């Protein structure tokens, strides 16, 4: 490791160091609330490093024996992950009283998990990517079980068992990629594949390569919550602490999309290979959207409903990944991934707003059932409006960021000859209106259980306000974020 390697890894390393500092401070401090502010203020250090890297590295730089890069794509995800984590930590000020005495471990595990996710976005080598995936997953399993109730423990064990199973499947695929190409370097895999004699009749040119790619997509599919690998989602979302659910639904999913984007567009980025995996992803996207939306229709628990909604949104995101232009001019090629990045940011703001509003309300009412939100517009008018705004953005109503995200991925799909997939997506959006608007109707039209006011604490109120402001700002003025996303993908998509 040279100084240059440390410089490229500085955002990841400083987040991990912050996690260790929080654990040590936990031993020293009597009161635990300052730990939250240490974490949030400490997160400005990795943010500064990421900003310095963004402005000081003109070319994608590669370090640590070619396994790690600090290119624009990685840095884009660093910003997204750091921002999400800071917001989740602020919003868990009140909630974390539920595990009094263990706030230090709670924060440290979350920070260590984020360092793994950031490394996942930066990795250029499949071994590094696998290790980063494990570093990001294992703390989340512990966090899901953090409430120590029956449901929470069950959520933790289910998450761990299914993520271990998916890791095994992913590894089998990665080893076949290594076996076929003789290299673990994501950039080197493409060179090795283009040097091989391909069997034109077969998808991906060889059965072994096809096996590898399919198993890699299946393995990462668990992390992205793609059907039919979404079985863990509803149970984990229902049982785990609500801030962790917000963290899982945004950070974990973004990191998985980052590495999948890098593997697909770098290691398997040649035109004939892209045509093959584009079909595979399009079919997965259609199944995922439909399954997520149909299963969400009958849910009574709002966290469980949002779990299925997450599955549906993974489907919309896959539409963007599948949108590799068949006409393969570089302009069309970039629209899909660019849309995915925009969608991920829009989805992050939206989902944070929704989950924070739910945290603010359920902190007082204690019930996750949708019926518990009856008449909430009278008991907590402001929070109800913000929650409704978030749900409308998930549904995709203008002028929210969620609407524009859907426009970008669906139009990229149409431009690349996947018009049928865009039609499936639009029909699914209409279906999703049913369950999102049902919550809004319950809040605004039903009679409240009692007239007791529900007031939010200042930290969670501020976090909800910030997330809602973001989803409105990027819904009205998307051009700067779109340009940012274009910069981020331009180095990877050629």
């Amino acid at each position, binding site marked *: 490791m040279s100084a240059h390697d440390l410089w490229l890894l500085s955002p990841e390393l400083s987040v991990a160091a912050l996690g260790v500092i929080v654990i040590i401070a936990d031993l020293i401090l009597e009161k635990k609330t300052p730990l939250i502010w240490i974490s949030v203020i400490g997160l400005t250090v990795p943010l500064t490093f990421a900003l310095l890297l963004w402005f000081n590295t003109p070319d994608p730089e590669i370090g640590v024996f070619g396994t790690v890069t600090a290119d624009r794509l990685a840095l884009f995800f660093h910003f997204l992950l750091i921002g999400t984590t800071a917001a989740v930590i602020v919003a868990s000020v009140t909630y974390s009283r539920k595990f009094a005495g263990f706030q230090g471990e709670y924060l440290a595990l979350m920070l260590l998990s984020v360092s793994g996710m950031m490394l996942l976005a930066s990795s250029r080598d499949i*071994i590094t990517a696998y290790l980063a995936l494990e570093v990001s997953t294992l703390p989340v399993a512990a966090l899901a079980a953090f409430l120590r109730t029956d449901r929470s423990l069950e959520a933790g064990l289910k998450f761990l068992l299914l993520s271990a199973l998916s890791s095994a499947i992913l590894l089998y695929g990665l080893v076949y990629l290594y076996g076929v190409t003789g290299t673990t370097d994501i950039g080197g895999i493409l060179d090795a594949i283009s040097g091989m004699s391909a069997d034109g009749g077969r998808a991906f040119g060889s059965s072994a390569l096809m096996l590898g790619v399919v198993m890699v997509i299946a393995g990462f599919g668990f992390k992205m919550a793609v059907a039919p690998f979404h079985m863990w989602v509803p149970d984990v979302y229902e049982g785990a602490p609500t801030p962790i659910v917000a963290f899982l639904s945004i950070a974990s999913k973004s990191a998985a999309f980052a590495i999948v984007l890098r593997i697909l567009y770098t290691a398997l980025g040649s035109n004939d290979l892209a045509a093959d995996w584009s079909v595979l992803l399009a079919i997965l996207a259609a199944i995922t959207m439909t399954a997520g939306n149909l299963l969400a229709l009958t849910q009574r628990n709002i966290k469980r409903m949002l779990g299925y909604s997450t599955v549906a949104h993974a489907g919309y995101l896959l539409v963007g990944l599948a949108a590799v232009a068949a006409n393969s001019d570089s302009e069309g090629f970039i629209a899909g991934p660019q849309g995915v990045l925009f969608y991920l940011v829009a989805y992050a703001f939206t989902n944070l707003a929704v989950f924070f509003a739910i945290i603010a309300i359920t902190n007082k009412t204690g019930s996750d059932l949708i019926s518990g939100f009856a008449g909430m517009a009278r008991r907590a008018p402001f929070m109800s409006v913000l929650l409704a705004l978030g749900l409308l953005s998930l549904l995709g109503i203008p002028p929210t960021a969620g609407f524009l995200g859907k426009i970008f991925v669906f139009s990229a799909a149409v431009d690349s000859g996947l018009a049928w997939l865009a039609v499936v997506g639009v029909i699914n959006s209409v279906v999703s209106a049913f369950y999102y608007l049902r919550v809004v109707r319950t809040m605004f039209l039903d009679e409240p259980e009692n007239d007791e006011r529900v007031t939010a604490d200042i930290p969670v109120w501020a976090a909800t306000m910030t997330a809602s402001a973001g989803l409105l700002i990027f819904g009205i003025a998307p051009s700067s974020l779109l340009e940012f996303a274009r910069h981020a993908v331009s180095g990877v998509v050629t």
Partner: protein
Amino acid sequence: MTLENVLLVSAILFAIGLYGALTRRNAIVLLMSIELMFNAVNIAAIGFSRFTLPAALSGSRIEVTADTVQTALSGHVFAIFIIAAAAAEVALGLALVIAIYRQRQTTDVSELDTMRG
């Protein structure tokens, strides 16, 4: 012994593990089945490495450089990291199983059904 033999053993082991992971009810047996799948992956990784290393070293066309050796040894490195990560996974899994056993006196995952829908 050829690469095909090694990959066949690996595939059979992986299939046995996957079958166990999908059908067994006991959480500890589930962890064992998943461990079997990880070891199947290790065998494949070492197999690929073993049969590409001599080719890289003795092939007349390929010059032996630090690069080719590093490429061929990646499989070994991969296997070592997988063993370490699998150990961490099992440690956390057993901790969760113990926590659940203390509350419910069961390790049967089919009884973990407080959440439905």
